[in-house]
């Protein structure tokens, strides 16, 4: 006797977020990128649609990273001092769909760069590439609140994605995003209740729901990957069951977390075999694609290539 195949029918779907603005929409990007819109669990294409493929971004720092191991720096050696050239290389040579400009020069314990420096960098990077960009601060609340509004203004109308908004610090960034027409990254520490809370807080400031991207906080392989996975799974189930306050697409900072692990770091040191670190990054990324990630930020060009191929297979393209 044939066993009937049970199919789930969901009531709702993930919101779509559009990144970037072309000249018709007041920006200068060559194209826009849409993420989200899933009406099924990851790649269960018999139960619903995945209208937009996951996008792969690459990290670009505005200063040479001081904590990247030697072999990880290698592919970027010629552009490491120049964020515009670095961004260009990521897009043109390594095939990044977007770039994440990290304003690490603003770190008060490092160069402690001010808003004017940052504005200039943002403009340069926008000129160098025509893909949508993600902009994040150094991660120091005070400096983020100083630099991100400046970055938001310098990229006005480009419909960028800015972060990170956290429960304790979201007002300044939300206001800057709203005033300058950007999207916002809502970050929570692997906690579904806080995830929803940040989204509610942003909504209370009138940030439209389709301008929010969820950063659930990414745990790398061997370092909490399963916690992030299960939170993402639960959030996505909520979205499909029509909980609008968690129905936003996901962003995962994979590169940062994978290359923070002891194993990846050691593999990229002099004399190590970096293929281990690259595998670490790829496996972490693949895991989150299968948890429903819509946007992944990676570091190594080989990981980008592999992950894009993986996505091609999943999307049947």
């Amino acid at each position, binding site marked *: 006797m044939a066993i009937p195949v049970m199919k789930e029918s969901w009531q709702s779907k993930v919101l779509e977020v559009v990144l970037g603005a072309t000249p018709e929409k007041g920006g200068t990007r060559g194209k826009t990128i849409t993420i989200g819109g899933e009406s099924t669990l990851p790649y269960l294409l018999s139960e619903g649609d995945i209208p937009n493929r996951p996008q792969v971004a690459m990290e670009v720092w505005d200063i040479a990273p001081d904590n990247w191991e030697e072999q990880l720096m290698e592919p970027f050696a010629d552009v490491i001092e120049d964020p515009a050239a670095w961004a260009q290389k990521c897009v043109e040579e390594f095939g990044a769909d977007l770039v994440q400009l990290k304003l690490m020069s603003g770190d008060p314990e490092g160069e402690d760069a001010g808003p004017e420096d940052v504005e200039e960098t943002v403009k340069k990077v926008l000129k160098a590439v025509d893909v949508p960009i993600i902009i994040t601060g150094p991660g120091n609340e005070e400096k983020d609140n100083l630099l991100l509004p400046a970055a938001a203004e310098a990229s006005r109308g480009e419909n960028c994605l800015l972060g990170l908004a956290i429960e304790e610090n979201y007002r300044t960034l939300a206001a800057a995003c709203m005033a300058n027409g950007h999207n916002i990254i809502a970050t929570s520490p692997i906690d*579904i*209740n806080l995830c*929803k809370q940040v989204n509610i807080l942003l909504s*209370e400031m009138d940030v439209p729901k389709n301008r929010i991207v969820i950063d659930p906080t990414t745990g790398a392989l061997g370092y909490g990957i399963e916690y992030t996975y299960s939170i993402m799974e639960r959030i996505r189930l909520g979205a499909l069951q029509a909980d609008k306050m968690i129905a936003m697409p996901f962003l995962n900072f994979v590169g940062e977390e994978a290359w923070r692990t002891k194993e990846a770091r050691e593999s990229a040191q002099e004399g190590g075999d970096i293929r281990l670190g690259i595998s670490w990054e790829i496996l972490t990324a693949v895991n989150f694609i299968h948890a429903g990630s819509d946007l992944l930020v990676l570091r190594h060009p080989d990981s980008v290539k592999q992950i894009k191929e993986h996505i091609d297979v999943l999307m049947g393209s």
Partner: protein
Amino acid sequence: MILIGERINGLFKDVRKAIQEKDPKPIQELAIKQAEAGAHYLDVNTGPAVDNPAEVMDWLVEVVQEVVDIPLSIDAAKMDAIEAGLKVHKNGRPIINSTTAEAKMLERALTLTKEYNALLIGLAMNEKGVPKDANSRCAIAMEIIAVADEFGIPTSDLFIDPLILPVGVAQDHAPEVLETISQIKTLADPPPKTVIGLSNVSQKAKHRELINRIFLVMSMGVGLDAAIVDVNDKDLMDAMATAKILLNQEIYAESYLEMSRR
């Protein structure tokens, strides 16, 4: 939780007066107020005191649809009045409110359900009246489900109303209604939805709002899907939002209440 706003009903004095004077304004204000409070449907009932229910229903539906774009629950004792409302209904799928299991009425209601692609509320009663216990209510519900199936109406388009009576009149009915709500889910797969006309439980009682609020939460606890309620009763809405959290139907967040009030 599917919320059906109860206020546009000729049983209320302000609505009755507006109907008599053919004054759309008070009705439209009630429609907007309920839609803004989060109603998914608006119940529209001419009330018993009109000579020409079909004509009044037609007018009510038109008047309401001028100001809101949510679907309506067309509520009348006579199918002719319901059909008059269905004919002019234009936003989404209307709810036919309601039919009993009495054969002639049920067949007419199911014919209209099909013709107008509507949803249907079936009352757990027949020509003999409202049964006292849960088993008899479920038996009637099963009849409705079976006949609907013959008409090709999917069970998921049916709402069964187990009929709650005023606590001051028939106190022993409330536990039976709760039992019915939970049993109905086992009658078919997919199961029909359940609905109650909440305010009936507190008819003529002194502490109406408290009774409504508690009974709604108790009913949600046994799986209620929909309720015809006063969506502008803020305490009731808060209780509902909290019940959804405690039943794990919605994900908790510190500001869940602020969000549900927006």
